[in-house]
C-alpha cells in the first residue's frame, strides 16, 4: 500500500486574487462607462486633462485586460493548479510577491496613463520601467507555476495546465518583442521599430495578446471550472488535445488580419486571413467541447446560475471566434475596420466570454473558499439577466452604428461626389447609438455591483479556510502500462518537453510572420521628399501621443476611392519611416489625419483645440484648452534627437545642440501667424508644437507633387 501524504492547499492567495478581480472589475468597467458617456457628452472631462477620453481609454482597456482579467486568470490558476497537481504552490513567498507586484503594476498604470505617460501602442501603453516590472513579475509567476509542477503528486498534466503553460511562454515572448524601446527619460521612450515595421510588431502582439491573455488562460479555466461546476468530465478529452495544439499553433499566424489594406505585403495579409479562417475549427472545437459537456444535463441550467454564466460565456466565445475570421476577410474588413464593429466584436469577447466566465467562476469559488453557500441565488440570477441584457444593448447598438457610419463614409452621389463629405455628419447620425451603448454598459455595471454585494454577503456568512487540507499519494515514477502505444500521454507527463514543444509551435508562426517584418524596412522604397520631423514637430507629436489622439484618429488612408476622395492620397509605407512609434490608430471616432497638414490655417487649429464645437458645431471631440496654457517642455529635445538618431533617423551629427534654436524659430513663425490672425499666444506654449505637428502631417508627399 502506498503511503498517503497530507498537505495543505494555499487558499489565501486565491482569496487575494479573487478580491482583486472583483475590485478591478468595478474600476475597469466604471472607467469604460465614463468614456462611453464622454463620447456623447464630451464636457464630462470637466476640462481636466487627466479625465479626457484619449487618456482614459487606454486606462479602461488596461484595467479590464490586465487588472480584471489578469487577476481573474491568476485567481483561477492558483486555485486549479494546486488541485490538479495535488500540491501546494511551490512558494508562498513567490505567490505573495506575484500578487502584490501585479497590483503595483496596475496602480502604476492607473497613475501614469491619466498623466499621459504612454507609448501609445494599444494594450502595451505602459512605459519602459513598468514594462520591465511586468517582465519580472511574469518570471516570478513562471517560477512559481513550474516549481509547483516539479513538486506535483499527479504525474499527468490536465489540459487546463497545458493552456496555462502556453500562456506563460507566449505572453513572455510577445511582451518582450513588442516592448523593445529606447528610453529618453524615465517616463518616455521611443519604439525601436518605425512605421510599417512597428505596426506589424504591434499587431502581431495585439492579436496574440487577445489570444494568449484573454483566450488561452480562460480556456484553461473553462476546462477546469466547467466540469467542476457541472460535476461531470469534459465532453471529449481527445477533442481538447486537438483544440489545444491547433489553437496555439494557428493563433500566432493570424496577426496580419489587423493590417488589411495597409502597407503590409499582400501575401502576408492573405496568410493572416487564411489562418484566421482556419482558426474557426479549433475555436469551435473548444466551444462544442464546452457546451456538449452539459449533454443530457441541460436541465441543470434552470437551477444553476454558475452554469448559466458559463454557457453564455462559451457561446460568446463561439460567436467571437466566428466573427473574428469573418472580419479578417478583406471585403468585410474594408467595411468594418475603423468602425464600431470592432468595438462590438471585442466587447462580445470581453463582456461575454471573459466577463461571464469570471462571474461564473466567482459564484462557484467564493462559497467554496468561505465554506458556505451563495448568499442569494436570486441576486445572482438578476445579475445574469441584467448582464445579458447589457451585452445585447451594447452589441446591437454598436453593430448598427458601424453599419450606418461605414455606409455613409462610402456613399457617393450619382455625380460621383461623396454624399457625406463632412465627417461630422456621419458622427451625428450615430450619437443615439452611443447613448444606447452606454445604457447597455450601465446595465452590465449594475449587475456587477449586485454581484459585489452578493459575494461580500456570502463571504461574511461563511468562514474562510486559509489552508485546506488534502491527501494524495506521492508521484509514481514507474510508467503506467496501457494497451496501446506511446501516444500523447508521453508528452503530458513531461512538462519540460511539453513546454518546449508549445514554444516551438508558437515560435514557428511568430518567426515566419516576423521575418518579413524585419526585412520590410530595407525594402521600402524611400521617398526622397520624406524628411525627419523638425524638433518642434517632434515635440508636438509627443504631445499628440500624450493626449491619446490616436484613440480616435487614424493616420492611415486605405487605397479606396471613398477614402482618397475624403482624405487625399492613400498612405505609402515610405511615409512612415521616421515614425517611432507608428500612429496608424485602429478606430475612427474622428476623421483620419494622415493628410491634415495645410488643410486649415494655424488659427483654425488653435480655435479647434480650445473648443472643437466652435469650428465644428456638434463635434464630440473634447476641448484641449490646457495646451494653450502649458509651457512646452523643451529640456528633452536634445535627448530625443539623439535617441532617434540611434534608432536610425538621419538627424545630422550635432543637430541636437542646435535643435532648440530651430524649435524656437519655427515656434515664433507659427505664433506670429496666429498673431496676424488675431490670436495672441506665446510661442513657448504646447499648442504651438501640436499645431506644427498637425500642419506637417502628410505634407511631404504633397510637397513632392508641387
Amino acid at each position, binding site marked *: 500500500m502506498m503511503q498517503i501524504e497530507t498537505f495543505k492547499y494555499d487558499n489565501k492567495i486565491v482569496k487575494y486574487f479573487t478580491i482583486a478581480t472583483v475590485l478591478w472589475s468595478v474600476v475597469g468597467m466604471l472607467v469604460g462607462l465614463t468614456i462611453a458617456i464622454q463620447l456623447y457628452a464630451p464636457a464630462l472631462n470637466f476640462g481636466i486633462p487627466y479625465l479626457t477620453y484619449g487618456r482614459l481609454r487606454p486606462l479602461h482597456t488596461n484595467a479590464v485586460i490586465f487588472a480584471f482579467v489578469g487577476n481573474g486568470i491568476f485567481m483561477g490558476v492558483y486555485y486549479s493548479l494546486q488541485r490538479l497537481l495535488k500540491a501546494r504552490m511551490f512558494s508562498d513567498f513567490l505567490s505573495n510577491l506575484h500578487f502584490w507586484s501585479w497590483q503595483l503594476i496596475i496602480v502604476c498604470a492607473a497613475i501614469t496613463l491619466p498623466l499621459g505617460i504612454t507609448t501609445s501602442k494599444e494594450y502595451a501603453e505602459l512605459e519602459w520601467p513598468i514594462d520591465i516590472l511586468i517582465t519580472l513579475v511574469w518570471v516570478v509567476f513562471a517560477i512559481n507555476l513550474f516549481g509547483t509542477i516539479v513538486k506535483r503528486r499527479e504525474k499527468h498534466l490536465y489540459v487546463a495546465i497545458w493552456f496555462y503553460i502556453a500562456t506563460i511562454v507566449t505572453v513572455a515572448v510577445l511582451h518582450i518583442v513588442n516592448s523593445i524601446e529606447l528610453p529618453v527619460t524615465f517616463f518616455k521612450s521611443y519604439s525601436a521599430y518605425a512605421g510599417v515595421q512597428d505596426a506589424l510588431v504591434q499587431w502581431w502582439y495585439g492579436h496574440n495578446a487577445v489570444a494568449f491573455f484573454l483566450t488561452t488562460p480562460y480556456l484553461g479555466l473553462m476546462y477546469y471550472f466547467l466540469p467542476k461546476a457541472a460535476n461531470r468530465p469534459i465532453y471529449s478529452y481527445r477533442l481538447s488535445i486537438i483544440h489545444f495544439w491547433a489553437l496555439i*499553433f494557428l493563433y500566432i499566424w493570424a496577426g496580419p488580419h489587423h493590417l488589411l489594406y495597409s502597407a503590409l505585403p*499582400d501575401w502576408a495579409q492573405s496568410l493572416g486571413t487564411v489562418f484566421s479562417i482556419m482558426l474557426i475549427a479549433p475555436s469551435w472545437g473548444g466551444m462544442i467541447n464546452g457546451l456538449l459537456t452539459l449533454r443530457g444535463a441541460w436541465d441543470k441550467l434552470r437551477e444553476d446560475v454558475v452554469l448559466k454564466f458559463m454557457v453564455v460565456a462559451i457561446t460568446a466565445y463561439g460567436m467571437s471566434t466566428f466573427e473574428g475570421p469573418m472580419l479578417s476577410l478583406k471585403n468585410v474588413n474594408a467595411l468594418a475596420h475603423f468602425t464600431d464593429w470592432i468595438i462590438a466584436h471585442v466587447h462580445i469577447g470581453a463582456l461575454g466570454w471573459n466577463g461571464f466566465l469570471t462571474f461564473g467562476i466567482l459564484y462557484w469559488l467564493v462559497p467554496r473558499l468561505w465554506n458556505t453557500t451563495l448568499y442569494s441565488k436570486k441576486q445572482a440570477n438578476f445579475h445574469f439577466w441584467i448582464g445579458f441584457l447589457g451585452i445585447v444593448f451594447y452589441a446591437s447598438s454598436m453593430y448598427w452604428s458601424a453599419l450606418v457610419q461605414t455606409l455613409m463614409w462610402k456613399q457617393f452621389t450619382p455625380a460621383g461626389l461623396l454624399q457625406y463629405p463632412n465627417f461630422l455628419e456621419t458622427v451625428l447620425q450615430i450619437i443615439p447609438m452611443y447613448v444606447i451603448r452606454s445604457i447597455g454598459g450601465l446595465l452590465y455595471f449594475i449587475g456587477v455591483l449586485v454581484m459585489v454585494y452578493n459575494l461580500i454577503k456570502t463571504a461574511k456568512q461563511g468562514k474562510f479556510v486559509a489552508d485546506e487540507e488534502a491527501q494524495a*499519494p506521492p508521484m509514481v515514477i514507474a510508467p503506467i502500462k496501457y494497451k496501446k502505444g506511446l501516444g*500523447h500521454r508521453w508528452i503530458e507527463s513531461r512538462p519540460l518537453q511539453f513546454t518546449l514543444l508549445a514554444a516551438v509551435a508558437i515560435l514557428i508562426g511568430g518567426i515566419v510572420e516576423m521575418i518579413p517584418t524585419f*526585412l520590410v524596412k530595407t525594402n521600402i522604397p524611400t521617398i526622397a521628399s520624406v524628411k525627419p520631423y523638425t524638433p518642434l514637430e517632434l515635440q508636438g507629436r509627443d504631445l499628440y501621443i500624450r493626449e491619446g489622439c490616436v484613440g480616435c484618429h487614424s493616420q492611415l488612408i486605405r487605397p479606396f476611392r471613398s477614402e482618397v476622395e475624403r482624405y487625399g492620397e492613400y498612405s505609402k509605407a515610405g511615409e512612415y519611416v521616421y515614425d517611432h512609434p507608428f500612429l496608424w490608430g485602429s478606430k475612427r471616432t474622428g476623421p483620419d489625419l494622415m493628410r491634415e497638414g495645410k488643410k486649415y490655417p494655424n488659427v483654425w487649429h488653435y480655435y479647434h483645440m480650445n473648443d472643437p464645437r466652435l469650428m465644428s458645431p456638434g463635434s464630440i471631440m473634447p476641448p484641449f484648452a490646457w495646451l494653450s496654457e502649458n509651457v512646452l517642455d523643451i529640456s528633452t529635445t536634445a535627448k530625443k534627437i539623439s535617441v532617434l538618431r540611434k534608432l536610425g533617423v538621419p538627424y545630422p551629427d550635432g543637430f541636437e545642440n542646435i535643435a532648440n534654436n530651430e524649435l524656437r524659430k519655427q515656434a515664433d513663425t507659427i505664433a506670429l501667424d496666429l498673431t496676424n490672425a488675431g490670436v495672441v499666444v506665446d510661442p513657448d506654449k504646447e499648442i504651438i508644437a501640436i499645431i506644427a505637428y498637425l500642419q506637417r502631417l502628410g505634407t511631404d508627399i504633397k510637397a513632392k507633387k508641387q
Partner: protein
Amino acid sequence: MFSNYLSSIEGISVFPVVSLLIFFLVFILMVIWIFRIDKSYVKQMENLPFDMEDENRKL
C-alpha cells in the same frame, strides 16, 4: 501598390508553401496521436479535476 514591396525578397514565395506544409504535418501528427490514445487513459485524464482518485487512478 504596397504589395510590390516584398516581391524583391529572394524566394519569398516559398513562405506560404512552407507554412502550409508545417501546418499539415503538425495537424496529421496530432490526429495520429489522438487515435492512439488508450480509452482507460482518456478516462483517467478527463477525471483529473475530480477527487475520485481511488476509482479512476489505477495506481
